[in-house]
């Protein structure tokens, strides 16, 4: 994969197909953790980290365990040597990917606690929330469905995951910045609109702004 294609993919997934504002993935943490700027940055970093790792693991699972190919482990163990099309386990994707993400999050948490306590302090409380963040499973499933050709697939998975994570971080940091400023003028806002209702309307305005990147 050329460096040009790398940046092109990155920019498309950060701005044009922003995960939160144009694909509706990861809305729950977006609404929940965007009250303060520092926690928004922590959540964003944790998401980038887990997304990229999860995509790498999904690549291993997809190419060696699920897809019917000469490299399929089950085919190598139990196959007759020439007919691998019977070893198609792609219908198990959902269950395999969500369990691998859950296990990955648990492992990352344990490792961080033991070896990098400083980083654990920073990201620790956001990690358990990530298992049920649909952006992680979303990026893995989108990768698997979009990049089906074999050539340089791992790099494409990783680039797309990195871009999606950066896009999520960008969106949540902008939102946290706006909400922190919003606290100063909260008394002028009608009561029913305060809190989540207003957050949604701000998200709508941000989404309109990001649409400019698509070129409507």
């Amino acid at each position: 994969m050329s460096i040009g294609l790398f940046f092109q993919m990155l920019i498309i997934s950060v701005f044009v197909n922003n995960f939160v504002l144009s694909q509706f993935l990861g809305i729950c943490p977006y609404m929940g953790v965007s009250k303060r700027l520092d926690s928004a940055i922590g959540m964003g970093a944790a998401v980038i980290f887990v997304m990229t790792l999860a995509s790498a693991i999904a690549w291993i699972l997809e190419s060696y365990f699920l897809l019917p190919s000469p490299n399929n482990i089950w085919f190598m163990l139990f196959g007759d040597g020439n007919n691998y099309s019977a070893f198609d386990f792609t219908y198990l994707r959902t269950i395999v990917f969500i369990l691998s993400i859950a296990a990955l999050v648990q492992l990352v948490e344990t490792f961080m606690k033991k070896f990098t306590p400083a980083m654990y302090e920073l990201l620790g409380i956001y990690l358990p929330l990530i298992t049920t963040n649909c952006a992680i499973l979303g990026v893995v499933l989108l990768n698997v469905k979009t990049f089906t050709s074999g050539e340089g697939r791992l790099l494409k998975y990783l680039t797309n995951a990195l871009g999606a994570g950066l896009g999520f971080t960008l969106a949540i940091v902008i939102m946290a910045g706006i909400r922190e400023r919003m606290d100063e003028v909260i008394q002028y806002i009608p009561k029913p609109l305060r809190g989540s209702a207003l957050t949604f309307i701000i998200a709508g305005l941000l989404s309109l702004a990001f649409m400019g990147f698509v070129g409507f």
Partner: protein
Amino acid sequence: MDGIFKNNPVFIILLGLCPTLAVSSSLKNALGMGCAATFVLISSNIIISLNRKIIPANVRIPAYITVIATFVTIVELVMKAYFPALNEKLGIFIPLIVVNCIILGRAEAFASKNNVLDSILDGIGSGTGFTLALLLIAFVRELLGNGSLWDIPVSSGFKPMLVFILPAGAFFTLGILLAFFNYMRERNKL
């Protein structure tokens, strides 16, 4: 039956927002998504409630996720076989039912503590609440954004506002509906 109005998963507790926003651009999509999620919710509630005394407390979340993922896979395969058009439209949001917090939330908060019959009723209640919320948002968005209901145009003189079909419209609609529900609750309290 609290799940339908008093504890509506979408409008009151703010759970399951991703599918709510993403598939509510037309009534058909909304109903399809609502039915799929309700089926998964009821079935996983039954299984989890039946096994509530067997599942050890410290591995309960992975166990719940496995049960839910199994039913989501069933829904995926059935959709692919019998409703290919709907499957195409809902796309990635069918497998993403696995991480819908409503389902895991009901498993954790209700099915793991109550008997099968109550769990089924709870599943039906929360599922209906979710479906109704989806339909309400889809009603507004399809009417204003596409000028139609259930794919039937309402009036020839009406020029649809495209923004309501776009992602921004989903955020606006949900925000304004939330404000409306907050207002109604405030007023009923007084």
